[in-house]
């Protein structure tokens, strides 16, 4: 039997003293942590906060920011939440970046609403805050937004799928992101708008979190529910490839049309290989680069970027349809990310 540690009262006293000492230090500190964002070293600092460290989309965004930071001679620091939806992690990152004296913060909000108070605190200290990829709610909470028009990204593949079906009656499956996440809602609604369909025409809708394994499971279950599905809308290419695997297992991969959004290199290659019919390609490198440039401009002459900048979206397919503007996979692979 090991002995029970008795916390001697001296230790408690010591702890109390340490606490008091820390508070005293805190009180006498220079308090630059709560001051305005000023740079000590003379070089401009830019912060980039992504949803996660691991998603290739954000990895690419980071690369774009690093490249732009180098070109403009500014210092880039990066941070991320631990999982998609980790608001507390992003709040902490904002606070630490403000404390480190960044001139501007670029952020892809994990939770569009929940992040707003932290952004407002940063702005109050003179930091330029720009949202990348995902808007905040309200959109005006940030100074500016550089993002794909996700509704348009959905519309493009919707119009494409409509044209490719050539008037056949459509049985649509939707492999979505997650409830209440704006990016997923916009793409989904855009697809339906482009297709000229409503949610009534969707025979099976499942959340996948944009994950390949979950996409496969969702497709398997959808095929159980409605074996005659012939159009699959997917939130991103990993989900699309999961759907393809499920369809292939049933020998259905040739007669079901899969459309997606993202334009990552793996996904674009899958379009080339004929696994995915078409995808709406977006440009995370551009979002990051534009964001860094905006902070540099702000540091130079105090001019703040404002409003929404559409960083563009292109329909990529090798089976072009009449009346739908698209580029082939050669272009797609030249401009893909990941």
């Amino acid at each position, binding site marked *: *039997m*090991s*002995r*029970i*540690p*008795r*916390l001697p009262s001296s*230790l*408690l006293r010591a*702890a*109390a003293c340490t*606490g008091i000492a*820390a*508070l005293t*230090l*805190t*009180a*006498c*500190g*220079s*308090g*630059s*942590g*709560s*001051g305005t964002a000023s740079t*000590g070293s003379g070089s401009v*600092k830019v912060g980039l906060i992504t949803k996660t*460290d691991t998603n290739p989309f954000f990895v690419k965004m980071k690369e774009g920011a690093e490249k732009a930071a180098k070109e403009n001679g500014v*210092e*880039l*620091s*990066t*941070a*991320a939440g*631990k*999982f998609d*939806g*980790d*608001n*507390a992690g992003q*709040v*902490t*990152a904002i*606070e*630490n*970046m403000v*404390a*480190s*004296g960044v001139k501007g913060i670029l952020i892809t909000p*994990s*939770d*569009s*609403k*929940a992040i*707003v*108070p*932290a952004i407002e605190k940063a702005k109050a200290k003179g930091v330029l805050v720009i949202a990348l990829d995902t808007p905040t709610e309200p959109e005006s909470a940030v100074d500016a937004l550089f993002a794909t028009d996700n509704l348009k990204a959905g519309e493009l593949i919707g119009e494409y799928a409509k044209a490719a079906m050539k008037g056949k009656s459509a049985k649509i499956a939707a492999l979505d992101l*997650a*409830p*209440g996440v704006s990016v997923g809602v916009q793409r989904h609604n855009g697809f339906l708008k482009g297709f000229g369909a409503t949610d009534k025409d969707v025979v099976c809708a499942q959340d996948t979190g944009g994950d390949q394994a979950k996409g496969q499971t969702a497709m398997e279950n959808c095929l159980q529910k409605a074996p005659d599905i012939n159009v699959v809308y997917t939130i991103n290419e990993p989900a699309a490839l999961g759907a393809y695997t499920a369809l292939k297992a049933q020998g259905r991969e040739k007669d079901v049309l899969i459309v997606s959004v993202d334009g990552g290199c793996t996904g674009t290659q899958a379009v080339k290989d004929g696994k995915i019919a078409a995808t709406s390609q977006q440009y995370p490198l551009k979002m990051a680069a534009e964001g860094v440039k905006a902070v540099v401009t702000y540091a130079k002459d105090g001019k703040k970027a404002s409003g929404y900048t559409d960083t563009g979206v292109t329909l990529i397919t090798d089976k072009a349809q009449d009346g739908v503007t698209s580029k082939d996979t050669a272009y797609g692979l030249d401009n893909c990310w990941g």
Partner: protein
Amino acid sequence: MTATSTPPSTSKPYAELKAPTTVRRLLTQPTTGPLAALLLACAFFSVSTDQFLTGGNFSLIVQQVMVVGTLAIGQTLIILTAGIDLSCGAVMAFGSIVIAKMAAEGTLPPLVAIALGLVVCGGFGLLNGALVQKIPLPPFIVTLGMLNVAFALTHIYSEEQTVTNLPGPLTALGQTFPLGHTDITYGSLVTIALFLLLAYALSNTGWGRHVYALGNSPEAARLNGIRTSRLTIGVYTVAGLLYGIAALLLISRTGVGDPQAGQTDNLDSITAVVLGGTSLFGGRGSVLGTFIGVLIVGVFRNGLQLMGVASIYQTLITGVLVILAVTVDQISRKKAR
């Protein structure tokens, strides 16, 4: 650590051990290692970046660890009884959604909503304790199940929507007051007060001695007349109430009710407990150690960010530190026997 001369074969009662010198007692204090690590980290970051050693930055670190810190107090109590709680983050998230939604929709007055949140979280703790004690089931399994239950209830009740426009009392603890040149968050003081309160209760009350006894040997504790069943359920309930306080701190920190919150907080709180020198085998450790543990994580996260190091390296360092801490615990346990 120290080279004690007691053979490891037989365990002797405490009275027969050689009276330890002050130095030796310091070295075998489970909190000594973590405290040294914390001070070393602080020294390193103070040298590496000039923004680290400021009052404002320290206030920031404490504010950033107050939620996981409060969860970790409850986690420490449970781990001291040789249990573990995987449900703490999910229970906190549910509590925070209950408080936020009830108050924001005007179903209940803010203060009543807060009280209800505490009761709900305490209820989860009571249920955990009852299942662990009465059936009995392993704490790992019970709290794993409860993690899923609380997580699902959070998402069902919130309808996946972040709750905004909260009334003032819910975010009061997130407000700051000036102390010298620095803004201190009220919530930080709540967390520090809770740490001191539980540290006192564990080391200076009968209840605290019983918790340690229970963790060391439930059977011996029972034979010594400790009502182990009541004590266990009590510990889990107190932990649940602490998760309720953490829920309020979380709301006040972020200003919203977020159904996605707390997904990794169960492991983060266990990390803090382990870094603070508390043994996962029960009966050995302290909440002050846990406070140091939670500060270690916070200092690394903040310091590396100030240096401009990517956050993934903070995860890497945390992992290495956890393994180191458990190694030190094992070696010192061997020595203590």
